[in-house]
């Protein structure tokens, strides 16, 4: 789906969302009457310092404007890989965007990530993975790292990696793997109105408690994470 497709499907009653060189921002009136802040990254644009600072600015501005919920539309590349971005401290810019979304989610409006295209690595961490609920649209292609790069780093062939990927969802790119891990809460049905599915989600939002590890355990993608975290938490609470 293109950005225009997604916007039309999500907001049939209209919106003023603009795409400025891959930085998406604007608002849309939902069926409930609430005015949502819509931000995101489009056209597989890399997320660098220039993009991140604008997106976090929109999030912070929305607090005073009382807009919400916050929808984060994602079709990005990975983080921008450049000398300049690292020189200027890209890690802080990406962390700040994530923090803005997390703060919004905890104090102002719930945040929903809508992954409709690509995303990877640091870009995914600062956008979709920093929301309360991450939704996948069929056709989305998230990755932590692409398989060819992974093959180079692990010194395995693509074929060997693909073979291993058949037996575990833990490393290979793909929406279904992230669903099984607990990262993506739900994949929408592209034969049904996205606006209706968004309304249904908003009417039934989980609370702000991060349960992705429990979800990963339920779905069989992560069998250790929730248990280990709970054991450490328990030991720490009872330590003296």
């Amino acid at each position: 789906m293109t950005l225009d497709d997604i916007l039309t499907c999500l907001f049939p009653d209209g919106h003023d969302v603009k795409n400025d060189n891959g930085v998406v921002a604007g608002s849309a009136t939902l069926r409930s009457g609430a005015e949502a802040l819509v931000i995101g990254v489009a056209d597989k644009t890399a997320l660098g310092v220039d993009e991140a600072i604008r997106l976090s600015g929109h999030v912070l501005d929305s607090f005073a404007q009382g807009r919400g919920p916050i929808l984060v539309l994602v079709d990005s590349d990975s983080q921008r890989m450049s000398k300049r971005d690292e020189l200027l401290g890209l890690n802080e810019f990406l962390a700040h965007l994530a923090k803005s979304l997390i703060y919004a989610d905890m104090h102002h409006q719930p945040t929903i990530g809508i992954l409709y295209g690509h995303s990877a690595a640091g870009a995914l961490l600062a956008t979709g993975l920093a929301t309360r609920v991450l939704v996948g649209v069929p056709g989305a292609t998230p990755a932590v790292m692409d398989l060819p790069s992974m093959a180079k780093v692990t010194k395995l062939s693509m074929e060997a990696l693909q073979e291993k990927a058949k037996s575990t969802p833990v490393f290979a790119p793909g929406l279904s793997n992230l669903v099984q891990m607990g990262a993506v809460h739900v994949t929408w049905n592209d034969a049904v109105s996205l606006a209706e599915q968004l309304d249904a989600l908003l009417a039934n939002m989980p609370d702000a408690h991060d349960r992705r590890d429990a979800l990963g355990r339920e779905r069989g993608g992560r069998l250790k994470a929730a248990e280990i975290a709970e054991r450490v938490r328990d030991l720490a609470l009872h330590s003296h």
Partner: protein
Amino acid sequence: MTAPFKHAAQFPEGRASTTSFNEASARTRVALLLDAGSFVEFIGPEQREVSPHLKVFDLPEQFNDGIVVGRGRLDGAPVFVAAQEGRFMGGAFGEVHGAKLIGLLRAAREMVSIPVLILFDTGGVRLQEANAGELAIAEIMRAMMEARMAGVKVVGLIGGRSGCYGGGGLIAGCCSALAVSEPGRIAVSGPEVIETNRGVEEFDSRDRALVWRTMGGKNRRLLGAADVFTDDTIQGFRDAALELLGLVGAFDLDKLKAEQVRLADRLRSFGTCEDAVDIWTAEGVAHAESIPDLPADQFISLANKIGRTSRDAR
């Protein structure tokens, strides 16, 4: 089965001042950073909670999955500590490794009064468990911000051989404050990855001086991307941790807004600089090209004079 693994005091007095943080193991860093004999480990190696995913790749496991977490005392006051072993799988985040830190942060949120020290030493996500590692990092960021909003202080220490890369760099950006040494590096993409993707003209990964000017401790300190610079000793990091714990407060909207201003200002001031030397020159440093060779104590004075920190803006 779940009783913590207590560490006996193993080191003679004064070792912390003469032991390189960079060269020490995670275990040694913790033992020498904290008050002697005070550390109790949670899910230590004798629990054998190894990664379930390395067998698929025929790779060796480590009993603690490359991270030491637990509780100890710093100058008599309780602290939670997590220390990554940068030499095991590059200190990378896997499912179990990440979960140990998440549990610690969730406990810290409930206790509020016990700060968290994180000794970063990581290349980022462990590729063999990429999805689990990436998700663990996202959960760590969430848990850390929830803890900080409840009032917990989280201080990051960066000076290990793997640096603080990838998702580790994002987690570092969520801490209350950071201390860094000369060997420390903080970035998102590693030098080789930038070169592979964009070519050697964009970034020559074998130019060590370039790597350190761009991502290393001194640039981070001068930019205010890290708050304290220390020499590469465990004592130096201990002192830095104490200093920062005394300075930081809870996270709130004012800090978030101040950070937006701090980062936007940095972009405005230095966004067209070609190299770190240009940034330092713009900051008013005379002979900026000599910064890399400046000894720690002189560099610390210079950095403090320039005065960029993230105080109340991180």
